[in-house]
């Protein structure tokens, strides 16, 4: 597993003013891993994910992508971001384009693909998420779950190496959460490398290969889902999970 390392984060810290939200984070992502990051709101999960995609600039530390430090001035963030897909809590579909264009625009402008090729690719991923019938719809005409599935297809049509999910189901109602989670599950089973910030404990437990529990800006505990959910070592992890017991 260690020879297929895609991403290696070392001593990553992030300050917002005098508030240090990430403290000396170290972790590694290998090919095919599905990593769930869990933790209370404000523990730094989303900031960590946004740092990985350079939507936030880390204050200090190193992010190695196949051995290259992407925080180096010589590395162009757009080129790197095109290989690391991201799915947002608020979908962020382009409001001025229909579903098909949303999935094509990145391929044509960033990857330089032809329109035909981009369309074919977009249709493939849209049908994977069950949204190929809606190609002519504008984002405002879709429900939340449909929007999120399109957002996943948009990220996939860039054919990224890793897909980052920032609380992808938190803005959805309980009934549509399922349709998005099942798409993500299928994706995980197909071997996609994923990092998922989530409050869906069932998903973290059943689908992920590794779970990271974050608390107060540090990685408090990490391990397989069996270890974290079955036999947590730290007091904080136990306390956090006990709040979910009743639900699951």
């Amino acid at each position: 597993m260690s020879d297929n390392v895609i991403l290696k984060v070392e001593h990553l810290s992030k300050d917002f003013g005098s508030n240090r939200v990430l403290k000396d984070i170290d972790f590694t992502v290998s090919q095919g891993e599905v990593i769930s990051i869990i933790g209370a709101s404000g523990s730094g999960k989303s900031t960590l994910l946004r740092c990985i995609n350079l939507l936030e600039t880390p204050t200090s530390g190193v992010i190695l992508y196949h051995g290259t430090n992407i925080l180096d001035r010589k590395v162009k963030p757009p080129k790197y971001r095109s290989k690391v897909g991201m799915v947002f809590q608020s979908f962020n579909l382009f409001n001025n384009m229909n579903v098909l264009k949303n999935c094509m625009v990145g391929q044509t402008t960033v990857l330089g693909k032809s329109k035909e090729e981009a369309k074919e690719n977009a249709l493939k991923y849209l049908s994977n998420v069950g949204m190929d019938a809606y190609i002519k719809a504008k984002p405002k005409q879709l429900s939340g779950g449909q929007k999120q599935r399109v957002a996943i297809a948009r990220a996939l049509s860039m054919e990224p190496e890793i897909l980052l999910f920032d609380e992808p189901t938190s803005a959805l109602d309980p009934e549509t959460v399922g349709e998005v989670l099942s798409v993500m599950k299928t994706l995980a089973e197909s071997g996609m490398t994923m990092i998922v910030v989530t409050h869906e404990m069932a998903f973290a437990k059943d689908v992920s290969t590794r779970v990271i529990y974050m608390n107060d800006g540090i990685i408090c505990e990490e391990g397989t889902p069996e270890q974290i959910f079955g036999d947590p070592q730290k007091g904080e992890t136990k306390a956090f999970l006990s709040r979910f017991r009743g639900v699951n």
Partner: protein
Amino acid sequence: MGSEATNFTDIIAKLGSDIVKLWQDAAPQYLKGAGDTLLLAVVATAVGCLIGLYCGILQTLSYSKNDFWLKKAVINTTKAFVRVYVEVFRGTPMILQAVFIFFGLPYLTGNALRFDVITAAYIVVSVNTGAYMAETVRGGILSIDKGQTEGAMAIGMNHFQTMVKVILPQTLRNIIPQIGNNLIINIKDTSVMFIIGYAELFAAHKSYVGATYLYFPSAVVTMAMYLIMTAVCSVLLRLWEHLMDGPENFNLATTDSLALTSGMNNYPSGKRRKRWAR
């Protein structure tokens, strides 16, 4: 009371005959004036929009603290330049800007740099509109949800691509009412170009009343022509807005019976929602 009414009828009748006389005398001059006014206003507003869009992009440039110092310096200088441009051209009367460009440039350069009347008029109105549009575009860009930028950045678009493909099309839709404002203001305010001798509608009015002293009848005709031009432009702009909104409904690409049950293909939007608002 009765005699006053008769008087008033007489006055209206006189106004009518004066207008008929005016129109028989000088209709071509008035129409040409109106045409020149409209052309100047439309072209200058369009050019002003392009200047505004460009300045709008420049004003949203940003850098992170890891960037090379030269990049930071270039960005800061560019932004300062745009700010000075906006403040100067928004903060001085257009009539004086026309004097500066038409009389000032030849004066300062010893006649090396001079524009003819028509070129000078187009430059002044365009650059003036551009200054206002720069602020309008900046406001329009600020009003677009930050998530749109993040979504574009996350699939690897650079600043320019993000702006052109995602942010500016949405901005443009939102600022059409303001573009309309500028167009209508320009139709009226191009009248100050008489200062450098640009022959538009107001100049036609001035030259006619100079010869005939029919001040009020000519003012009525000129006023009506301005109103017709601005009203037509208003209607056309509304139409453009409506076109940009696109169709309210969409068709499913396949006949998937399962998909239909969860579809929202009759979601009320655009026209229907507006009708409720009324």
